């Protein structure tokens, strides 16, 4: 029986190659898109779950003034472990980019300092070395295989020495396998916290991420309640309440401490995957039901020969499953072809391995099964209901219009989904443009940011003087951080502040000429000036900080961060120091070294001959610090990087919107061809009676036009609601312009009508003699 059904299915495909191609191609494209997204989603969901103990690993998260942080007090990990039996093990991870050198080979490496139990908590396997003793000494260092190969090639690195930041010798005690891409912790070296000495054990300054491995029998929720006041018990420097929370390891990647959780994007993409698969299945249903009359005789005859309704239904579901299997094979081929491009787009390293990976095979089988059942069940229901007495007499199904209403509803649904995707794309593009062109209160163009090594830091003034010699260099200044994501918060006090106004602000240490170099506007008072030595103790506030203090005449007022007293000498315009997702933060600028010293040089250069100027900077830096690697970046590029996630999802939306339209049109193409075919005789008669070609084309296209108008009517309000939600994530958002909706609608209609009228034109131009003779 099965072989008979398979044979019929295969021969039907071969006899109606055109329709079969439309069906299978549409389904294949839909499946490929769906599978790609599901691979991406699976990767996102898999983050940090490869650790054997992942379910019992938590991060401690202190909260200050309603904002949560991953940076924890240095002494927290050890103190928690000592005090609570629930904490089996604990480690810190203090992230540091350092320079390592072996002879001539010098590179910057990302990594951090961790505690002895790091490898007992996490499942990062070691290729060489004993995980229990690799961090025995302050100078121990563990390298990734990737890093070890860079410094030592094929040699065994164990026991060898590397120079840290050009000064401190470190001894390699272990080599670990490279960190998997789906780990939120990414590092190529690990050092020991013993390197910090006494300070690492006693300091309550917020520096390192802290991980605890809880007893599997412990109740994490109860334990979190128990330790909630822990920071306040030990750190008496402030009376500000600092609740301590626990975050499960598996939530670090997809749940933000503050603001929108990245898992929102996972849901959005899942919805898109589902949409696209449904759109493809809808094509299948539409073509199968529209063409049901061509199968009517066969169904009737099978029933006469003894088939029950269930037999016939099984046959058509089987055919749909067979088609979706063929489509899946094509889809797998497409994925092999497009996976590299998708990986580049999504910045992932996804791989497709159906044979070797059980869960991928399951995913593939699941998609085949779901789309087969989804697209086969309605046609099966409809076709198996044909009454043999009726269909055999005139060779046509009595309900020739079988499911016409449903088909119309499906087409409307399909195009609604496609239009929503297009609107989403347009809105994202517009929002990104808006961000790019928004006046951020700062001119980032042609500003080179150079991170200072210890060497350059110690020779900062002469280095600054030296580079200023070049006429292509307009201004030089420095600061502790890049003016992008300023985040450390410290309590501030001002003249007239009430004791209840506990306020923290971001304090940023800067050099002279900071505001002029970065194009920031002083709106009151003045900037820091060499002629006033007291400026080293004074403060400049941004407008947001001024607003919070509520001072009406701020200039000359006393102000302090912690206990460092000074006076307010100026107010600078707000500049976006963090992504535009978030509102402006209050910032206090100071020149005092107590706020962390200068770590980045900013050089404003002329737009002409940028490579030449960069080469000059590099040469000059080499004269001052011959052993350093010269690193630099452009501030505007750094700024754009903040929106990489948005741009990435923007372009993914775009590609999938195009795919959705493509698949929908494929279906429409088939439907139009079939409608035209069915109405061949009518068209012939109309032509004989004098109808013009254009008249016939418009007659055939009219129904589809109405469906598309309905699709627009449905999709616009839905899209409006969704986009309004999406944009609410941004503190600064482009208005939802009205033109976007008709633009998306008209574009879709044009493409769809072009598709339909191609078929209509073909039907209209056929010679009526041919079509009438057959009857």
């Amino acid at each position, binding site marked *: *029986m099965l072989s*008979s059904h398979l*044979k*019929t299915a295969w*021969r*039907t495909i071969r*006899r109606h190659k055109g329709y079969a191609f439309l069906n299978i191609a549409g389904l294949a494209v839909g499946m490929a898109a769906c599978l790609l997204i599901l691979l991406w989603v699976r990767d996102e969901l898999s983050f940090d779950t490869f650790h054997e103990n992942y379910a019992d690993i938590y991060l401690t998260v202190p909260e200050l003034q309603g904002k949560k942080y991953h940076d924890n007090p240095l002494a927290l990990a050890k103190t928690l472990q000592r005090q609570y039996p629930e904490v089996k093990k604990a480690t810190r991870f203090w992230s540091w980019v350092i320079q390592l050198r072996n002879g001539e080979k010098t590179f910057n490496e990302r990594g951090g300092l961790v505690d002895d139990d790091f490898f007992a908590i996490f499942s990062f396997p070691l290729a060489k070395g004993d995980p229990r003793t690799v961090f025995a000494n302050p100078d121990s260092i563990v390298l990734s295989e990737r890093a070890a190969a860079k410094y030592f090639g094929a040699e065994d690195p164990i026991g060898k020495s590397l120079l840290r930041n050009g000064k401190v010798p470190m001894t390699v005690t272990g080599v670990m396998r490279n960190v998997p891409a789906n780990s939120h912790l990414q590092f190529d070296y690990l050092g020991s916290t013993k390197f910090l000495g006494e300070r690492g054990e006693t300091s309550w300054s917020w520096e390192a991420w802290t991980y605890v491995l809880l007893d599997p029998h412990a109740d994490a929720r109860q334990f979190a309640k128990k330790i909630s006041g822990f920071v306040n018990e030990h750190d008496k420097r402030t009376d500000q309440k600092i609740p301590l929370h626990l975050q499960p390891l598996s939530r670090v990647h997809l749940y933000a401490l503050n603001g929108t959780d990245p898992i929102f994007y996972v849901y959005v993409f899942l919805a898109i995957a589902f949409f696209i698969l449904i759109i493809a299945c809808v094509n299948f249903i539409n073509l199968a039901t529209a063409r049901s009359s061509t199968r009517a*005789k*066969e169904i*009737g*005859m*099978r*029933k*006469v*020969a*003894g*088939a*029950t*309704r*269930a*037999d016939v239904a099984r046959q058509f579901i089987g055919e749909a499953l067979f088609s979706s299997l063929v489509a899946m094979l094509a889809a797998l081929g497409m994925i092999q072809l497009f996976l590299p491009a998708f990986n580049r787009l999504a910045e992932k390293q996804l791989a497709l391995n159906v044979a070797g990976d059980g869960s991928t095979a399951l995913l593939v089988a699941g998609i085949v099964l779901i789309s087969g059942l989804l697209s086969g069940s309605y046609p099966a229901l409809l076709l198996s209901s044909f*009454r*043999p*007495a009726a269909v*055999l*007499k005139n*060779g046509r199904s009595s309900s020739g219009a079988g499911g016409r209403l449903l088909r119309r509803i499906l087409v409307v649904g399909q195009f609604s989904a496609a239009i929503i995707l297009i609107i989403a794309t347009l809105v994202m593009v517009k929002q990104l443009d808006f961000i790019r062109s928004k006046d951020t209160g700062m001119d980032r163009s042609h500003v080179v940011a150079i991170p200072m090594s210890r060497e350059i830091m110690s020779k900062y003034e002469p280095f600054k003087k030296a580079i200023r010699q070049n006429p292509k260099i307009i201004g030089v200044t420095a600061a502790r951080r890049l003016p992008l994501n300023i985040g450390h918060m410290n309590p501030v006090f001002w003249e007239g502040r009430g004791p209840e106004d506990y306020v923290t602000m971001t304090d940023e240490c800067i050099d002279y000429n900071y505001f002029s170099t970065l194009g920031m506007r002083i709106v009151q008072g003045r900037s820091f000036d060499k002629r006033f030595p007291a400026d080293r103790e004074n403060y400049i506030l941004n407008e947001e900080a001024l607003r919070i203090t509520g001072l009406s005449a701020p200039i000359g007022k006393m102000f302090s961060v912690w206990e460092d007293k000074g006076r307010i000498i100026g107010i600078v315009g707000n500049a976006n120091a963090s992504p535009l997702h978030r509102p402006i933060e209050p910032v206090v600028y100071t020149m005092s070294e107590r706020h962390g010293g200068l770590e980045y040089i900013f050089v404003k250069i002329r737009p002409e001959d940028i490579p030449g100027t960069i080469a000059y900077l590099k040469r000059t830096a080499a004269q001052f610090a011959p052993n350093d690697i010269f690193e630099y970046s452009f501030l505007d590029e750094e700024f754009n990087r903040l929106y990489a996630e948005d741009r990435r999802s923007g372009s993914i939306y775009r590609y999938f919107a195009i795919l959705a339209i493509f698949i929908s049109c494929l279906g429409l193409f088939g439907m139009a061809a079939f409608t035209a075919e069915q109405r061949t005789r009518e068209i012939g008669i109309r032509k004989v009676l004098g109808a013009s070609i254009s008249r016939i084309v418009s007659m055939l296209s009219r129904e589809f036009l109405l469906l598309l108008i309905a699709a627009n009517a449905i999709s616009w309000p839905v899209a409006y609601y969704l986009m309004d939600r999406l944009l609410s994530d941004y503190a600064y958002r482009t208005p939802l312009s009205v033109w976007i909706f008709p633009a998306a609608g008209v574009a879709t209609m044009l493409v769809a009508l072009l598709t339909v009228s191609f078929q209509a034109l073909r039907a209209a131009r056929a010679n009526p003699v041919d079509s009438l003779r057959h009857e």
Partner: protein
Amino acid sequence: MIQTKNLKKIYTTEEVETSALNQINLSVKESEFVAVMGPSGCGKSTLLNILGLLDNPSEGEYQFLGHEVSRYSERQRAHLRKANIGFVFQSFNLIDELTVFENIELPLLYLKVGSGERKKKVLEVMERMQLIPRKNHFPQQLSGGQQQRVAVARALVARPKLILADEPTGNLDSANGDEVMNLLSQLHDEGTTIVMVTHSPAYAEYAQRVVHLFDGHIVTENFNQKFHV
């Protein structure tokens, strides 16, 4: 074998109610050959469909092989039908995607006959119909007469007790028509019950009894003299 009482069939559309059959009382004995004649639209095919369990009557009773089947569900009818009834149509109704062999095999598939047994039975009937050289051809590759031979072979292969033929010669020239009628006649001689709808008085001669239908009523029943000598 067949016994109907006051059989009625009414077709309803949105606006009109058409009575296709009215008060049909007909009985067919085992091994009988009955021809049904009448003008187009008189209800011949409707009657055949009901007798063949493809359709239910609107009113009245229908006894088939001792079962009262007029209220049977589609499923029950399908089960009774596949074991007992073979059909031959005017338009052959072969499945284009299946070969000659596969078309003939179809009823056996739905009867869940094992594959060895199936092959044997299909070849047997093909042999008899002289279709062996056409075994792997598709219906479009055959002449009309050949196609109808395939259709008859398909109707026979499960050895049904009853064969219903709806104008089996309607699409054939006279030579091929004669051939099909001779086949049916042979089957009748071997004991198969046959009910055949036809327009042709000449072919009606092959039957033992001719039933004339007009506007859904049985108007006359004639017994063929040559069978009563």
